[in-house]
């Protein structure tokens, strides 16, 4: 599947493709035989708190009977008759290895409350209701959530586990020039990473805003560049490096409201001449070097210890 298509698939949809009937079905199936009476069937529904069962004859699936059949029988005063007379004979079944996305479609199409599940030898191995599907999806989402927690835990303890006089984690991101569709991806990825490292949210906000502004500058003005974040136990250093065109007058560029952005970029709400000021406001230390025709090198530090603000 290509990347853009995959992006459109939400987590839940993804799960309905990944999970199979056997991951969601109930394996202990309550069954009745054609000889069971509707009165006995009523008691079975009540005891097990279910709304229907498959009907087995000599171990083979002969039909399916539901609470609706029971209501009809009650209305007709036929509570004493055998299930065999009231059941649905042609049973729609599902296979254990069908993806849930197909099953969801079957529930919508037929409006049935349950489907018996058979293996490839047509033996009854389970039963599935819409409730089973919801439970399976919730269970899976819970697992995903726990995995994210484990990621977080492992990552946030990494500095304690490393034995060295100096430790630094370095993350590099490529930023494509003139490509507004991918603008913000580097900052967003860095933000996720820092959050997993257990960095305090106010610090993450400052890093995210500064990095986003730097990233947008690379997108608007250059043909591309790199953002490198170096995380140490006491500080985060972010460098944004591009290959030109360079800034002729840095002092002027730092003036709030000064911008050389083209009109169409301004119409998008960028290029208001505040990007560098925002970066400065977020950084504890900021250094900006630029050579026309060579490129620009932005270097900022945000402290994590008592030297910082958060």
């Amino acid at each position: 599947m290509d990347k853009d298509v995959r992006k459109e698939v939400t987590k839940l949809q993804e799960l309905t493709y990944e999970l199979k009937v056997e991951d969601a079905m109930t394996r202990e199936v309550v069954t009745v035989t054609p000889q069971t009476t509707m009165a006995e069937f009523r008691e079975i529904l009540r005891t097990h708190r279910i709304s229907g069962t498959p009907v087995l004859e000599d171990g083979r699936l002969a039909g399916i009977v539901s609470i609706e059949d029971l209501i009809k029988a009650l209305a007709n005063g036929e509570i004493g008759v055998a299930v065999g007379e009231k059941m649905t004979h042609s049973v729609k079944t599902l296979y254990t290895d069908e993806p849930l996305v197909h099953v969801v479609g079957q529930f919508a199409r037929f409006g049935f409350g349950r489907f018996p599940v058979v293996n490839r030898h047509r033996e009854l191995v389970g039963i599935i209701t819409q409730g089973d599907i919801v439970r399976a999806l919730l269970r899976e989402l819970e697992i995903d959530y726990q995995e994210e927690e484990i990621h977080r835990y492992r990552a946030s303890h990494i500095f304690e586990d490393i034995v060295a006089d100096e430790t630094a984690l370095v993350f590099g991101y490529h930023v494509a020039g003139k490509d507004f569709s991918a603008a913000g991806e580097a900052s967003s990825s860095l933000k996720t990473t820092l959050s997993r490292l257990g960095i305090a949210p106010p610090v993450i906000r400052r890093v995210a805003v500064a990095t986003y502004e730097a990233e947008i500058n690379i997108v608007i003005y250059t043909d591309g560049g790199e953002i490198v974040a170096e995380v140490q136990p006491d500080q985060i250093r972010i460098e944004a490096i591009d290959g030109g065109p360079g800034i002729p007058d840095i002092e002027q560029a730092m003036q709030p409201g000064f911008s050389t952005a083209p009109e169409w970029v301004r119409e998008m709400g960028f290029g208001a001449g505040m990007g560098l000021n925002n970066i400065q406001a977020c950084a504890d230390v900021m250094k900006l070097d630029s050579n026309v025709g060579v490129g620009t090198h932005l270097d900022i530090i945000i402290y994590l210890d008592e030297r910082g603000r958060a």
Partner: protein
Amino acid sequence: MKLRGIAAALDLVVRAAPDKLDTEVTGGYASDLLSCVLAKAQKGNLWITLQAHPNIVAVASLLELAGIVVTEGRELDPGTVEKATEKGVPIFTTPHATFTIVSELAKLGVAGVD
């Protein structure tokens, strides 16, 4: 007040992330300049803007805003809804002007943040 209640009261059209409407809105911020939003808007704020391109989603996601209201009946750019769905950022549209929406929000008790 929750996002869901605000959307109902102001008759906003939900365009993305309808599953994320139980967020408590911590305040509001209105601007069409992205740098202003980056500097001022706080986590959980509702952002009112005329901008309709996909980059508003990146800004809202970075700042963990509650959602974005795009005003003046401005149609969303192709890709904005897709990106907002991916990032889980609720986006609403309304035919009303920014000022009208802001004054209605104020009546509901949603305050400015600066």
